[in-house]
């Protein structure tokens, strides 16, 4: 069995009386791209926020590389190697694209208050390394020529791509992409599809892709997990999940799904 990067064990979460997650189990192996889909309200975002440390579950455990991360601060989980992107652009608006990328290397760099303020050699060498790494990461996503632009000058789609690059640059053990396709035009969507495949083929990252655009998920992911009403209703390779009865029912309802399968 190859090592699991992420283990989610019997996770339960309720807001008030509403049970949002009801015994979720998930295991993501190193190098795997896992799709996480489900109708609205299935609990995808809650699960993601628990993994990131924003919410604390009432029951269950989350393990990153075997160590429990429940109760840790988001920044501390990030330093253990968890990266994520957001549904709305979270680029730092007061920075250029390049500076955003360098901020992405925060957990990989060590310059502290005095090394920085007194301009010690460490600051100089580390700044150069970070800049070179940031430029090559921007080149990888085809954004090198925008490096000196303010983040605010980028289009919506460009911001999305830079944000993904900023997350990948520190080579986290696991990356959560929260609906990267949301709000993208058809052209941009095709570009995102290409980019995700390129990341999969060349970077070998472990990735959880939360997405409503199903063809994106089916094209990129090795395994797909389907949530509905806080439970896992299917788990397997894209082809199997696509034809799973429970999944079709969750999306279309029982009646429609019967008609869909008859046709």
């Amino acid at each position, binding site marked *: 069995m190859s090592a699991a990067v992420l283990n989610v064990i019997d996770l339960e979460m309720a807001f008030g009386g509403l049970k949002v997650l009801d015994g979720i189990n998930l295991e993501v192996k190193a190098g795997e791209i896992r799709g996480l889909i489900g109708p609205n309200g299935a609990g995808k975002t809650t699960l993601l926020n628990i993994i*990131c440390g*924003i919410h604390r579950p009432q029951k269950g455990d989350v393990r990153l590389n075997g160590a429990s991360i429940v109760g840790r*601060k*988001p*920044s*501390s989980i*990030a*330093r253990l190697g968890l*990266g*994520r992107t*957001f549904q709305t652009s*979270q*680029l*730092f*608006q*007061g*920075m*250029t694209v*390049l*500076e955003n990328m*360098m*901020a*992405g*290397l*925060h*957990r990989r*760099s*060590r*310059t*502290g*208050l005095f090394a*920085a*303020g*007194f*301009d010690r050699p460490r*600051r*100089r060498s*580390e*700044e*150069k390394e*970070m*800049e*070179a790494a940031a*430029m*090559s990461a921007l*080149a*990888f996503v085809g954004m*090198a*020529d925008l*490096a*000196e632009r303010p983040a605010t000058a980028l289009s919506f789609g460009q911001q999305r791509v830079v944000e993904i690059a*900023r*997350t990948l640059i*520190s080579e986290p053990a696991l990356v959560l992409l929260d609906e990267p396709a949301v709000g993208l035009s058809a052209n941009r969507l095709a570009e995102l599809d290409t980019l995700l495949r390129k990341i999969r083929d*060349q970077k070998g990252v472990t990735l959880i892709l939360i997405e409503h655009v199903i063809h994106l998920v089916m094209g990129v992911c090795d395994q797909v997990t389907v949530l509905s009403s806080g439970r896992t209703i299917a788990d397997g390779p894209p082809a199997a999940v696509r034809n799973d009865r429970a999944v079709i029912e969750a999306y279309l309802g029982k009646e429609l799904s019967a008609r869909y399968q008859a046709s």
Partner: protein
Amino acid sequence: MAPFGRRNVLLALLAAAIVLPAFANVYHLFIANLILVYVLLAIGLNILVGYAGQLAFANAAMFGIGAYATGLLQVRLGWSFWLAFPSGALLATAVGLAISLPALRLSGLYLALSTLAFAQATQWVFLHWESVTFGAGGFKTPPLSFAPLPIDKPLGLYYLSLVLMLALFLFAQNLVASRVGRAFVAVRDGEVAAQSLGVDLLRYKALAFGISGFYAGTAGGLYSAMLNFVAPEGFDLFQMVLQKAMIVVGGLGSITGSVLGAGLIILLLEALRAFKGLQEIVFGALLVGFVLFMRGGLSSVLKRHVRGWEEPLRLPQPSAPMPAPRPIEAPAVRGEQ
């Protein structure tokens, strides 16, 4: 490269500051020294408000704590200025770190209100803890002497302020163009995203509060020595408005802007000294005017219209004057295959 760039203008100002005492009378030297003190205050406040994005109103209190501690350690405990001054700065730093603790839980207006309350409480302590602080009347500090050096006190203090201002200016400029400065801006521009990149909010907010406390405390110690006198009214709400005006006029998120803002506001204050009562009105109008029409302050106008005023949040590249097409394409080729 850029003859009127930031670097050249600042070097010219520094040269002027070095030779100024040769031409200035006592009053001019006092005003120049006051500007140096306020540059320290403005830089510290700008790191906290402009870079780290913490809308705090405790800087005047920190300034007062530096001044009171430096003065009282001399008067009450008989310490020398040279020991009391750094101790005062460190005490202000410690207080800055302490008030950063609620700052982690509060933001925006709530942080502004709680730090304002802290400032008022400090003011109350200065006024009413008479057995220690001498109350509303204030107290005189012992005369400062630069003994082995053959210079009188105003001149010695001026150059001491200039050296400290220069050192702390350079420190701040290096700091903001580094990993730490980017972490501050990350906290300002998006706390959730900053955390997701591993930036510890508590650590960097505390750091920003501590730094601004240190700068304000240092300024307070120098200020007490300039006046040879410490009293509560120097550290009231108007003091806070003054400092905010400096960073708003100079430019939030700009170390150079802090220098320009402090200089301009102090000169304006002196120009208006003859018209008491007008000062508050002019500063109020100035603040509103800049907030409405010139959000980024002077430094953003200079950045837009004059070459060489950029203040990147990373190591400046002396070899590459302008962002030309980047030479670092080599690793990309491998990636594109």
